[in-house]
């Protein structure tokens, strides 16, 4: 070797020494499933859209979001956000405000007029969707994007289902709902109002449909027998809330008693308060912690002056009053009568005891299985009758907007497969990004952003929206609280911490690669990856 004076070794010549041979385990990059995504009934890629929101690319974030859910502005208001309950950040300080960022993106899309991408080429197939609630709308959206011709037949005069005729305005302003529905219709979906489907097979035949998705919801208010004089007004909660959308507001009087403990009971009591009732009292047979309503909703109702009689049942309704019996919980936690009675003044009693499904459109359809008043569906959302799919409140599951939207998506993808004579291939789920897979040292300390609330007087007297949204800077802050569980966010830690310089940085958006010729398998990159996107795999030796 010819070298200049006093130079003995050439720079970087150690590259001939392949230290990768020392390794007994190798690091590999992977995407783990973030717990938020795992918990989302609509199957949203939450971490995925937060990633874009973090860099302020809101439109991109919104586009990733609507891949799975066409109603972000609605979701950002009414979803009970199980994602936040599962969020790993909850174990660090408090969960990421996913719901509030979702609302911000949804509102931003409405404000800026973002539209969905054009549908795929036409498949030539026609699908009937029955019901324009969240499930039907979601199915229509996904079917349209897959290139199918979609017609929604809706019994009522307006779209939205329980989002319009159940959920009160103070939680979901109708302009928001209208905007998101219109965007779906703009994809070329036909929506026929005042078209109640009485016989599904007939309707399919009449319109020449190749498949149908049923999403008629659960609208028949459950009754219970209460001995009552003629003078007492007993109505059901769903009808009360529905009439809120019409010209004539319901007449409930000054003292309103609501019977039940679910979200509907809360909504109707809060509505009564806003309509001018001096007293809105919820009568519920168990305790607050047993209440099916969400605690934050109970809290908001109490703030507005709604009162609750816990551990009570209505025995009798008299003239301008009702008799309630005190209950006590037995060892198993069931309420038992105590024989102790109390009288409450009441101008009306509103029953909020849950809803049943009107299944009359299915009469005579072969192969169906009906259980507990709901239609049974297979994992691909098809009923026992080939080509007829169903979802939302009419099938057995949790009754939420989010579940309904998720069903609509899943059904649409399966209908698409069924129309092609195939079955939908669902890739196996990635392994879960549990908290112990994270190295949380690396995340900045940052408390959750609190959303503004309307002042209490306006909450008691108007139907203005109670909860405010985030602005651009608070939304950005909140998005950036995400830990990006299980998914590389290009923090460069692996690239930095490798003592052997065995990680290649591929550049923005392209992530990293290992140089296995030199990686000795120390595991530092795995230990120092904040989000658990690398794991060690034993070498075959």
């Amino acid at each position: 070797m010819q070298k200049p004076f006093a130079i003995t070794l050439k720079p970087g010549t150690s590259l001939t020494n392949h230290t990768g041979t020392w390794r007994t385990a190798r690091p590999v990059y992977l995407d783990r499933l973030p717990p938020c995504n795992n918990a989302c009934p609509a199957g949203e890629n939450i971490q995925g859209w937060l990633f874009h929101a973090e860099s302020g690319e809101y439109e991109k974030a919104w586009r990733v979001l609507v891949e799975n859910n066409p109603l972000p502005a609605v979701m950002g208001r009414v979803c009970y956000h199980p994602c936040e309950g599962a969020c790993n950040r909850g174990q660090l300080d408090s969960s990421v405000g996913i719901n509030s960022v979702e609302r911000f993106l949804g509102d931003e899309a409405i404000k800026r007029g973002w539209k969905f991408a054009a549908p795929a080429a036409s498949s030539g197939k026609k699908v009937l969707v029955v019901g324009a609630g969240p499930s039907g709308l979601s199915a229509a959206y996904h079917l349209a994007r897959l290139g199918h011709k979609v017609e929604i037949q809706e019994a009522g005069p307006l779209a939205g289902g329980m989002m319009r005729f159940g959920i009160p305005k103070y939680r979901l302003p109708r302009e928001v709902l209208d905007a998101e529905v219109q965007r779906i219709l703009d994809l070329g979906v036909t929506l026929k109002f005042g078209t109640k489907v009485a016989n599904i097979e007939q309707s399919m035949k009449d319109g020449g449909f190749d498949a149908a998705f049923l999403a008629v919801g659960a609208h028949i208010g459950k009754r219970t027998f209460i001995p009552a004089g003629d003078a007492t007004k007993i109505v059901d909660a769903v009808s009360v809330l529905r009439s809120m959308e019409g010209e004539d507001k319901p007449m409930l009087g000054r003292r309103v008693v609501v019977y039940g403990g679910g979200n509907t009971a809360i909504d109707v009591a809060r509505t009564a308060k806003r309509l001018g009732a001096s007293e809105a009292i919820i009568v519920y047979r168990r305790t607050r912690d047993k209440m099916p309503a969400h605690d934050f909703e109970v809290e908001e109702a109490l703030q507005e002056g709604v009162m609750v009689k816990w551990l009570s049942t209505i025995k009798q309704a008299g003239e301008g009053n009702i008799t309630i019996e005190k209950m006590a919980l037995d060892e198993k936690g069931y309420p038992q009568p105590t024989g102790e009675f109390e009288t409450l003044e009441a101008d009306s009693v509103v029953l909020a005891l849950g809803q049943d499904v009107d299944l009359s459109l299915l009469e005579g359809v072969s192969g169906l299985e009906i259980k507990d008043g709901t239609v049974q569906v297979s994992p691909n959302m098809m009923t026992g009758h080939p080509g007829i799919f169903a979802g939302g409140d009419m099938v057995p599951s949790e009754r939420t907007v989010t579940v309904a939207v998720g069903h609509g998506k899943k059904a649409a993808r399966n209908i698409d497969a069924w129309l092609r004579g195939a079955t939908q291939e669902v890739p196996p789920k990635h392994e879960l990004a549990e908290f112990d897979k994270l190295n949380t040292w690396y995340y900045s300390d940052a408390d959750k952003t609190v959303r503004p609330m309307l002042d209490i007087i306006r909450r008691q007297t108007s139907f203005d929206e109670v909860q405010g949204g985030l602005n651009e800077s608070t939304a950005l802050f909140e998005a950036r609280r995400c830990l990006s569980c299980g998914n590389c966010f290009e923090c460069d830690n692996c690239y930095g911490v490798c003592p052997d310089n065995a990680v290649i940085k591929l550049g923005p958006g392209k992530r990293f690669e290992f140089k296995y010729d030199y990686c000795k398998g120390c595991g530092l990159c795995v230990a120092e990856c904040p989000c658990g996107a690398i794991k060690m795999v034993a070498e075959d030796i």
Partner: protein
Amino acid sequence: MSFQPVKFYQTGTLTVGNRLLAQDERSVQANQMRSNSINSGHRACQGCGEALGARYAIDAAMAESNGQLIAANATGCLEVFSTPYPESSWQLPWIHSLFGNAPAVATGIAAAMKVKGRNDVRVVAQGGDGGTTDIGFGCLSGMFERNDDVLYICYDNQGYMNTGVQRSSATPPAARTATTMPVGPEPGNVFGQGKNVPEIAMAHNIPYVATATVADLRDLEYKVRKAMQMRGARYIQIFVPCPLGWGAASHDTIRLARLAKETGMFPVFEAEHGEVTSVLKIRNKVAVEEYLKPQKRFAHLFGKHAHPETVARLQAIADRNIRKYKLLPEGEN
């Protein structure tokens, strides 16, 4: 002014890089074009803190000197694992002579550059704690006293690792080495001896003295770059865990460095002309046990024949550092 961490943007400046930071706020190590001064193929153990610390420091010095840098290297692991003849991992002019004379060699290089009028060429000297705090100490003190234009970097792994984990004057009390009491009532290194070279360096009134760890890259890079902006004798001691010598898992190198800082066992600070100007605050204070337990060199302090009183003495050392350097966040000291 000390290093100003960026507090937000998801991970702020806690991670090596951050796609949300402006370009000029990013680290040298995050750069695809970093110089990789010590390249792949070197023969350091898996998870070597010294190899990592050297790349962090020298890459930063290369960035600050526009690549016009010469390094003198004392004998020790860093030299042996990087340059087994005929290979070298170094990607800059690099000179090796002896175990004990790296500061003097660097002084000579700096003098030669001065004579040649090469103001732009900068000089670093580097060595292990043994080469620095023991055998090279005389040369080092002379370099300080003459205020020679050299940045000396000591990679402190708390022992003579290259020759088989012997005790150095930087080995902490109670740590077991090949040359400390293996058995008896108080095994491991004795209390009350050892040398605090950063403080001795400060006593020379040189322009810049700092400590850093491989767990706080941004702080480390800031200190190296700042030192490179100065002239005269400068000293940085970097805490580099040694998986082999400490009996620790190779993937724990950075965690241990972090714990050394978070417990107060290794105070991270900087000083100009003999006065401490800033400290890197503890973020989540932890007890010394958390730092000691993952290391086999302290294993005799725990388990069946535990030495809680020794652990308490180590805790007292950490507490003293916390008091002395005011390591807790404002208002908590």
